[in-house]
């Protein structure tokens, strides 16, 4: 029983009204602004975003520390990132994000380690700057091949008045100009992970770009140098993207920040073009490089063959015919593989509906990949999106799509219960809620421990995974047969 667009819109409006009824009046008013139904031709999704979460509602959001340490800085593999404050933040985020890298962990790479100042009461009372200095000394002593240090501030740092900037500056000087980056990403700052991304971007600007002379004068540029910005190499995503850029004749001089190194960050101002995947988390540094170094940037989308094809051409349009031909060759090379994937999986997935709630770029970026498989995204929302994300989303969603910003646990559960999608794509906190309800689910942050999902190689995996989620025989077993 498929609804017409008008019926869907009416149903969705009714649904929004219904979920708002549970809230106290003041909260209902505030939440109403975050829920909407997309109307074709509108410039945005008619929802407000990037606003404080309401206490007690069970927001899915995280914090600025998660945005800086967990997303932007954490994957830089040859630096040591100190979770500065009590033990928990670093513990819960320890190696949880699947930022793949290659290196000798503990010797020249440190991504899957948890370095913490493990604050005790005396550090809160007397301040932690002395301890931080000592920590840096001990890092230099025990991990001599580290190429830099970042200080990822947890909540107490900003509250007790510690001067991590002064400590970092002093130690950098002492260690012969080593890159030491103080990051003011205390968890209470801002309204979500998002401010943490921004603060982390600014820290790259201030402490990697501005503080260093050209550290690699021997580096020889070519006209085809690009940097991948905003790919965290979850399950190897950045690698499955890099391979395509290289195949079309470009030279990828840096990965930000999955499998990235400090040298790559330092050399990025030498790029001819920055290609930006996760706009939300790294548009700031891309804009900065445009202003300061005159490097243009272009957003791309490597989910699903339709978007990949368009993106390859878009990227190539910034270069000469050699690259443009290269892009066509790459598209042609993978055509048969993509057709094979679609032939295999589309018949099993055609017409299936999906509801998403994710972070960063994915609430819009993955829609094309689902559509390549004949699936429809009927609801989507951002954990920490801004208005410019929702504007961009209009290019992806269909008329009548249910939109929910910073969705609460209650709303998401009710929406899914009523809309009854064939698949929900969200995070670990949501996964088991919906599986209990008998709704197929894929984690769309960690790729549910699969991946990569980016690039042509990734699309085959994406298609396989969506099929195995939806067509899992277990969903036929949830109802007890002897109960009516």
């Amino acid at each position, binding site marked *: 029983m498929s609804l017409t667009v008008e019926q869907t819109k009416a149903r969705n409006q009714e649904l929004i009204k219904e979920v708002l009824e549970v809230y106290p009046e003041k909260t209902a008013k505030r939440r109403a602004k975050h829920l909407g139904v997309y109307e074709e031709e509108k410039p945005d999704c008619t929802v407000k975003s990037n606003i404080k979460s309401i206490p007690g509602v069970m*927001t899915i959001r995280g914090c600025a520390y998660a945005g800086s340490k967990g997303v932007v800085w954490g994957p830089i593999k040859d630096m040591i990132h100190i979770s500065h404050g009590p033990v928990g933040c670093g513990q819960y985020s320890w190696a949880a994000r699947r930022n793949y890298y290659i290196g000798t962990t503990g010797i020249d790479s440190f991504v899957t380690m948890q370095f913490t100042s493990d604050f005790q009461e005396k550090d809160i009372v007397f301040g932690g700057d002395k301890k931080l200095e000592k920590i840096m000394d001990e890092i230099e002593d025990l991990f001599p091949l580290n190429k830099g240090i970042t200080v990822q501030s947890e909540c107490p740092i900003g509250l007790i008045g510690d001067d991590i900037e002064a400590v970092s500056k002093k130690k950098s000087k002492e260690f012969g100009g080593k890159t030491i980056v103080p990051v003011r990403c205390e968890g209470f700052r801002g309204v979500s992970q998002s401010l943490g991304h921004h603060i982390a971007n600014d820290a790259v600007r201030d402490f990697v770009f501005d503080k260093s002379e050209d550290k690699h004068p021997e580096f020889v540029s070519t006209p085809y140098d690009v940097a991948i910005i905003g790919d965290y190499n979850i399950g190897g995503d950045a690698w499955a993207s890099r391979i395509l850029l290289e195949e079309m004749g470009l030279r990828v001089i840096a990965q930000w920040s999955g499998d990235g190194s400090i040298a790559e960050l330092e050399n990025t101002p030498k790029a001819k073009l920055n290609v930006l995947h996760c706009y939300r988390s790294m548009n700031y540094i891309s804009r900065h490089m445009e202003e300061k170094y005159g490097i243009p940037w272009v957003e791309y989308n490597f989910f699903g063959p339709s978007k990949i094809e368009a993106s390859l051409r878009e990227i190539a349009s910034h270069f000469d015919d050699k690259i443009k031909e290269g892009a066509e060759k790459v598209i042609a090379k993978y055509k048969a593989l993509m057709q094979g994937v679609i032939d295999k999986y589309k018949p099993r997935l055609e017409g299936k509906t999906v509801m998403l709630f994710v972070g960063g770029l994915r609430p819009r970026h993955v829609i094309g990949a689902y559509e390549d498989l004949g699936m429809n995204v009927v609801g989507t929302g951002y954990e920490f999106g801004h208005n410019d994300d929702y504007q961009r989303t209009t290019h992806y969603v269909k008329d009548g799509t249910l939109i929910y910003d910073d969705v609460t646990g209650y709303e998401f559960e009710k929406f899914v219960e009523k809309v009854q999608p064939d698949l929900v794509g969200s995070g670990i*906190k949501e996964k088991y809620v919906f599986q209990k309800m008998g709704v197929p689910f894929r984690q769309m942050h960690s790729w549910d421990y699969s991946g990569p999902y980016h690039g042509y190689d990734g699309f*085959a995996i994406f298609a396989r995974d969506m099929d195995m989620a939806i067509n899992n025989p277990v969903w036929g077993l949830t109802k007890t047969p002897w109960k009516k």
Partner: protein
Amino acid sequence: MSQNTSNVLDHFNLFREPEYTELFENKRKNFEFAHPDQKIAEIRDWTKTWEYREKNFGREALTVNPAKACQPLGAVFAAIGFESTMPFVHGSQGCVAYYRSHFSRHFKEPTSCVSSSMTEDAAVFGGLNNMIDGLANTYAMYKPKMIAVSTTCMAEVIGDDLNGFISTAREKGSVPADFDVPYAHTPAFVGSHVTGYDNALKGIVSHFWEGKERTPNEKINFIGGFDGYTVGNLREIKRIFALMGVDATILADNSDVLDTPADGEFRMYDGGTTLEDAKLALNAKATISMQQYCTEKTLAYIAGTGQETVALNHPVGVAATDKFLMEVSRVTGKAIPTELEKERGRLVDAIADSSAHIHGKKFALYGDPDLMLGLAAFLMELGAEPTHILSTNGGKEWEEQVKALLASSPFGKDCHVYAGKDLWHMRSLLFTEPVDFLIGNTYGKYLERDTGTPLIRIGFPIFDRHHKHRYPVWGYQGSMNALVTILDKIFDEMDKNTNIPSKTDYSFDIIR
């Protein structure tokens, strides 16, 4: 192009294909400005030395790969053990996202918990409004029977007054006047998750008991403590109590909410200690805690009400389970039934069958303080030799207690105890004084990879193996599970080390 539709390659195999290995090499060579391989090898070898170990143990400020979490995690774990209770963590919201993820990764279950979402303005003005709005919203949306409040370090640093805030919220009508809102201050910069469990449980118990008259009865209370095996363990304990005819209240019983069925319905709440039982638990004649270090303050409070308290240390094995059952029997006056005697005999039988493979093997182990005491005793019972026992959240008192335990058995004589140390210390220990097996949580896999010491996963969190939390490690039957877990690894290693044709054909035995 290696990708194909008939056998889709994902990260396990895709990146081993030549187009990717070449990509990795080029990236490293041309763009990473990495240290020379020889330098890396040199430093790697140096980190294996005694010299490095001494430097490493000389650390005074830096913690690397700790085996502990922070207080509020334990508070949430305790809170969800009560009937229809929503944990409410006052402070920054990111913390709650972390606790929920952490538990869901271990239990593969939803974890419901809310935050008061304090931000910069709350840091300046305090979080009173967050508490008022937060309690009102949680109460309206999730219809809990109780909201258990704990704190993040942010709220603790700015000194929010929970008692005053909750009273004000009540007055403002956030929750009904008689609605239960127990609370506990759980600063992340004091103790660890086991401390948070203790504080939260004490907060809940004292909320119900404070100012109430105690009328002693014949029941007992039972507290499991922070436990990654809570689902299996608490069910096993209930089975044992049923066999003994013991009338017990399990306090903080989260075994159902962390194991709900997939039958089409999401249960935000399931099972748990009823609020009525929690109130009446004041009248019990005694409270037994399975984990002393998870319940120090709680037991002291309970003892203050006139109850007898018994503190154990995560009992695993024959003697420890004997002691547990005899304590239950002594306190309740109920006999230990023959059914349990048979289970005991079966465990002894199993140990007799298998201990030849464990006897004399050296073990390193790390984890929460009580778990270490329980496992060390069990290993010595099996004739194994604990060699390094490490607990990041263990203190001086714990260290002394472990030493006393080790001194009680000849199998403990070569063991050293490391309180307050982390897994980077453990790495040095494993390189300089190697052992046969390592026991620890999922993070031990990095130690296994670095040092080659086979990891036996017992502890919390276990993220990379499924369903282990469903199997108890308490009671004779639970101890049997622990035994089998250890044995499986030992046998797997034997096979792995003897499977090269025409080189190690011998010892690759079909019967062991």
